[in-house]
């Protein structure tokens, strides 16, 4: 390192590596101290370029701090505290290590200044977060995790291809700066695809509801915050003003609402709502004016908090009762009143109800769209906010906490407000959602451009209240059509699930048959003579050579027997060990 600048992500990485040593009474305080230290180090970041490392021919930039990266690093490290507090009662070290590596990947991506460092942290995010899916250990978790990993690896390869091509085209430029969005070439599009896979822009969105609904309870709280909003950061950095993002984002905002309306699983509904809300930010980036970029940043900030809150609320229902399917819940306000209150605050925030965070953030994007005459996109976003109100304030709360009580006896008995740390985490997030909505300078002063926007005008209030009121009436009249049904919804993941199935069929029937023929032939012709010869040499080596020399082979075998126990045969454990070693290796290279 060229100076003593401390990278905030490094605190999380080292903290995660030391976590297994923390036992007993020290463990819980330690779990809170590490993210708090990270947050403090983000607060202390000075503007400018830090952490410049010469690596081979390239100058790697680990710390670019400016108005844009600071607001994202701030909210990511803040959410890390809330998410860790929510999962504090999780005794599995693996959860916290995966979550911190994931957040470190996100903060590293936000602070990086070139594509190589970006790629490094980008992949760290994917590999950290996939463990949050696997740690659910449900019947679907393993398959879902692999689907998630494959999609993100493919997205990462697009990004790699894109910046390599750009490096070649520009004669050696790796810096991550605004790209030429007015005259995009192949490299620009490849990088864009890499980014929008993580932003879950259709048609690359199916991984999101799939993974978030299958992740562990505390894991989903992390996942819903970091991947998509980090993608919004890199889009805002590289692709501000890219026109194609406007229609993509507008479609995304409505697509998520439509799927949310027919979905039954509470967490999956909010996963679809995430797709919808990220659509707003994608539109904001596509418009690319200072108002709309401010809007995208503000909305990402607000979204991380209220979305985390919604996943904490529905996660608490899942944690306590064992289900979050709306058809198996109802009437829970008597058993979980505090969870209800916090989840309702999250719902009001996501729907943009006055005095809550969504009201002051998403309207910046819509106004930004109106000002540049993007009327279709703006009206689509306004409609989507009516739809969001239907989902987050009416559908999920009504069928979880009110409505007909469909709880089984077992669910009803288990239901209750969750442990203190989960309530505290929800309380902090809920408090911030209301605070942002009431005291706008807190958020507005952090945004990349000076803000001249005032959300609390009579016109904006009346527009919002009319739409929300009418959404309520539409819900009341059309309740039979929005009532949850015990179904799942087919989506574009159908294609790759079926492709995977076809591939497995081809592999297990055709390749396997050929393979067993070859093995049989080999066994008959080649193996027997080979085994006889090797048995002789093995006997000779063991008794003659090793016995005579120093017994090295016997010692190695004893060590091998111990190491063998680490090898469970499950590839995800191998990925875990390999990823840990790789991170250690990179740390050693970069910092020493």
């Amino acid at each position, binding site marked *: 390192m060229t100076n003593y600048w401390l990278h905030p992500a490094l605190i999380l990485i080292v903290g995660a590596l030391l976590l297994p040593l923390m036992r007993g009474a020290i463990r819980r305080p330690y779990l809170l101290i590490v993210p708090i230290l990270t947050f403090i180090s983000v607060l202390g970041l000075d503007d400018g370029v830090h952490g410049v490392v010469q690596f081979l021919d390239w100058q790697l930039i680990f710390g670019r701090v400016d108005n844009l990266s600071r607001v994202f690093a701030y909210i990511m490290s803040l959410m890390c505290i809330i998410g860790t507090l929510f999962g504090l009662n999780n005794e599995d070290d693996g959860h916290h290590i995966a979550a911190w590596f994931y957040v470190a990947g996100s903060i590293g991506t936000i602070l990086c200044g070139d594509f190589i460092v970006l790629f490094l942290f980008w992949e760290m995010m994917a590999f950290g977060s996939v463990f949050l899916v696997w740690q659910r250990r449900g019947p679907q978790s393993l398959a879902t995790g692999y689907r998630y990993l494959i999609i993100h690896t493919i997205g990462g390869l697009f990004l790699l291809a894109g910046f390599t091509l750009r490096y070649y085209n520009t004669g050696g430029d790796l810096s991550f700066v605004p790209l030429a969005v007015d005259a995009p070439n192949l490299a620009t599009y490849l990088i864009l695809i890499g980014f929008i896979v993580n932003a879950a822009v259709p048609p690359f969105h199916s991984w999101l509801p799939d993974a978030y609904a299958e992740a562990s309870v505390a894991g989903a709280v992390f996942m819903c915050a970091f991947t998509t909003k980090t993608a919004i950061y890199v889009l805002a950095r590289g692709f501000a003003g890219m026109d194609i993002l406007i229609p993509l984002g507008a479609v995304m905002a*409505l697509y998520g*609402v*439509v*799927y949310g*309306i*027919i979905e039954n699983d509470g967490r999956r509904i909010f996963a679809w709502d995430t797709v919808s809300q990220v659509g707003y930010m994608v539109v904001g980036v596509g418009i690319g004016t200072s108002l709309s970029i401010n809007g995208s940043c503000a909305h990402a900030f607000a979204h991380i908090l209220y979305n985390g809150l919604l996943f904490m609320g529905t996660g608490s229902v899942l944690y306590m009762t064992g289900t979050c399917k709306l058809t198996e819940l109802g009437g829970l*306000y*008597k058993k979980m*009143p*505090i969870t209800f*209150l916090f989840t309702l605050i999250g719902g009001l925030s996501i729907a943009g109800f006055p005095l809550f965070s969504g009201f002051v953030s998403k309207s910046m994007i819509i106004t930004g769209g*109106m*000002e540049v005459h993007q*009327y279709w996109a*703006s*009206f689509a976003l*306004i*409609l989507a906010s*009516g*739809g969001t109100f*239907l989902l987050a304030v009416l559908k999920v709360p009504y069928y979880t906490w*009110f409505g007909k009580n469909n709880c089984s006896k077992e669910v009803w008995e288990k239901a209750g407000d969750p442990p203190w740390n989960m309530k505290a985490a929800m309380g902090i997030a809920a408090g911030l959602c209301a605070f942002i909505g009431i005291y706008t300078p807190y958020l507005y002063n952090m945004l990349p451009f000076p803000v001249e926007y005032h959300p609390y*005008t*009579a*016109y904006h209030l*009346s*527009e919002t*209240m*009319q*739409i*929300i*009121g*009418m*959404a*309520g*009436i*539409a*819900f*009341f*009249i*059309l309740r039979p*059509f*929005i009532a949850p*049904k*015990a*179904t*799942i*919804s*087919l*989506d574009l993941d159908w294609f790759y*699930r079926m492709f995977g199935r076809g591939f497995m069929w081809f592999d297990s029937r055709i390749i396997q048959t050929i393979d067993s023929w070859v093995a049989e032939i080999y066994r008959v012709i080649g193996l027997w003579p080979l085994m006889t010869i090797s048995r002789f040499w093995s006997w000779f080596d063991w008794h003659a050579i090793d016995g005579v020399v120093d017994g090295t082979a016997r010692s190695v075998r004893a060590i091998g027997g111990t190491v063998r126990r680490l090898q469970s045969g499950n590839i995800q454990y191998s990925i875990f060990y390999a990823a840990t070693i790789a991170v250690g290796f990179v740390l050693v290279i970069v910092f020493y």
Partner: protein
Amino acid sequence: MIAFIEFFRERMKMTIALCLAAVILIALWGAFLVDTSHAHTSMEKIPFFWSAFGLIGCALLILLSRFLGWMGIMTREDYYDD
């Protein structure tokens, strides 16, 4: 908190009437008292525009979603299991 909720649940008709009254009052306020000179499009100056937009838009969203579901997107929960 629970007592507060139950107060309204026991008086369901009154609660519904209160909500309805609030929606109507908001619509009337928006249509006649709010200054629309800063609206971005001329449509927005039509009285009750946002109320109509909200009602029709949300109703269409619900019906469209359910229609797509009925077309085959909504399927049995064990669809991917076999």
